[in-house]
């Protein structure tokens, strides 16, 4: 069974299509990375799945039902972002509220984790640092053990050590309590070890929805003499190109045959796999040149 099914989803604010005809299916019990640039529509997509927003067109199905204003589905969803809780709320009250709301919430472990992270439960949200607020929200979201757990930019404000601990915690909890977890983040390289599925969106459109293994082998970097590599341009899909004198670096969608790869290697072309982060960045590049072009002169 699929946890999420989107059919031709359109979400419009005024005249702007924030989500533009998105269709995809996400299976149950997997960790999905939702990747996209700022303003790509990630948060709008998550809010639509969380039942906050009503689709303008198309159909959204979460755990078999439409989520908008549907308490039976919403009780199995948790959505975490950085503006969740009232600033004047006391953490202890929020933990109690989580225990009342989520039937699977593990309050004992939640309190242990808050103690471990030195987060005082008697404090108000506004007294916490940015990182502590994020950690608190993460603890509540993860330990709710909701069948659909959505984390929007979960590592904002966390230092490197806390990010590492969060990823370990996420993985352990997921292993013990399998469910569908959607993580939207800019830190693609850190997520790479966790993600089983990658959904890439750009300007409201779905670029791809693939298994992580497919994305890891999606494209190649070819680095060599311009004369050799320019021949490839007409025949293959190029997603990245950088010239350095006579040298050329190409990012090529990996549908090259074994013979072609061997031929390139024998011509002195260096071949390396393109990282998931580079695939996502290159596929969503704006084609406006780089930021350095703006300040050049």
């Amino acid at each position: 069974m699929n946890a999420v099914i989107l059919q031709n989803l359109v979400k419009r604010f005024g005249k702007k299509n924030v989500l533009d005809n998105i269709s995809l299916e996400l299976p149950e019990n997997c960790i999905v990375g939702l990747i996209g640039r700022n303003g790509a529509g990630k948060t709008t997509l998550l809010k639509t799945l969380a039942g906050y927003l009503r689709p303008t067109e198309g159909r959204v199905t979460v755990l078999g039902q439409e989520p908008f204003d549907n308490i039976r589905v919403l009780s199995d969803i948790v959505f975490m972002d950085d503006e969740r809780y009232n600033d004047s709320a006391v953490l202890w009250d929020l933990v109690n509220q989580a225990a009342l709301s989520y039937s699977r919430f593990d309050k004992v472990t939640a309190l242990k984790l808050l103690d471990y992270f030195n987060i005082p439960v008697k404090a108000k949200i506004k007294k916490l640092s940015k990182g502590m607020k994020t950690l608190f929200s993460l603890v509540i979201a993860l330990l709710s053990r909701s069948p659909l757990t959505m984390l929007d930019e979960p590592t904002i404000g966390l230092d490197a050590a806390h990010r590492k601990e969060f990823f370990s915690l996420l993985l352990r909890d997921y292993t013990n309590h399998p469910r569908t977890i959607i993580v939207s983040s800019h830190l693609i390289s850190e997520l790479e070890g966790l993600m089983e599925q990658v959904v890439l969106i750009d300007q409201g459109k779905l670029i791809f929805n693939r298994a992580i293994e497919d994305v890891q082998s999606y494209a190649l970097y070819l680095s060599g003499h311009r004369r050799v590599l320019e021949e490839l341009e007409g025949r293959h899909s190029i997603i990245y190109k950088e010239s350095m004198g006579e040298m050329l670096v190409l990012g090529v969608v990996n549908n090259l045959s074994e013979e072609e790869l061997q031929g390139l290697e024998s011509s002195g072309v260096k071949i390396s796999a393109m990282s998931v982060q580079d695939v996502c960045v290159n596929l969503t590049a704006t084609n406006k040149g780089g930021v350095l072009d703006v300040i050049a002169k």
Partner: protein
Amino acid sequence: MLSQNSRLRAMKSLLYSYYVDFKSFYGIYIGIMTGLLLSKLALSSSASGSSSLSAGLVNGMFMLPIAMIIITSNSELLKKFSFHVDRNMLVFSHIILILVLPVIMLLTSCGFHLLETLAAEIALTATGNFFYTWVITKDSFLVGFALSYIIMVCVGGITWMVFAWFYRHKIATSVVCGTFLLALIYLRNFRDAFLNLINLIVYSPSPGMLFLKFSAITLISFAVGYIPIKRMEVK
């Protein structure tokens, strides 16, 4: 896979969050009441048996609408969606607040009334230079309590309805309210008609009829205010 009793859990959680929120609201109410009564006792050499009840009513008439303005705002509703809730539940919990808070405020003012009576009796015993008038009978107390309650509920309901629309449709609501106020100020016929309507509501042959009229207005306010909240998106 779908959780059992999800509606009940969500309702409990929502009411718990409002209970937490309104502990501070109640603290403010108590603070204002104490300040008003202590200052009156300190500044005046007389006391009336109904002053704390009047203070409670006036205080509640201000504080309940302010609470309604806050709880219908987009930012407050967003926070309530931190934990799963549907829009019917949200409206239901608001109605519970509108119905229950006036009872709590009025009962509190009754408590203050007893304290005030006690303080006045002590003052009378201690000094001859003190005047105290006892104007409340059992019947007048019960009628006053019921009418005070329904007036507070009605004012709270109307405020809730207006702001439920205002936060969702700011321009349209401002235009309607602005036009209404301007018509009230500049159109004599409209003003007279409106005042006649108010007279028709307020002047009733019996307190029971007045109670019913305010109840009807409150119910209409709940129904009208439900519409924008039911349709709203949480942004």
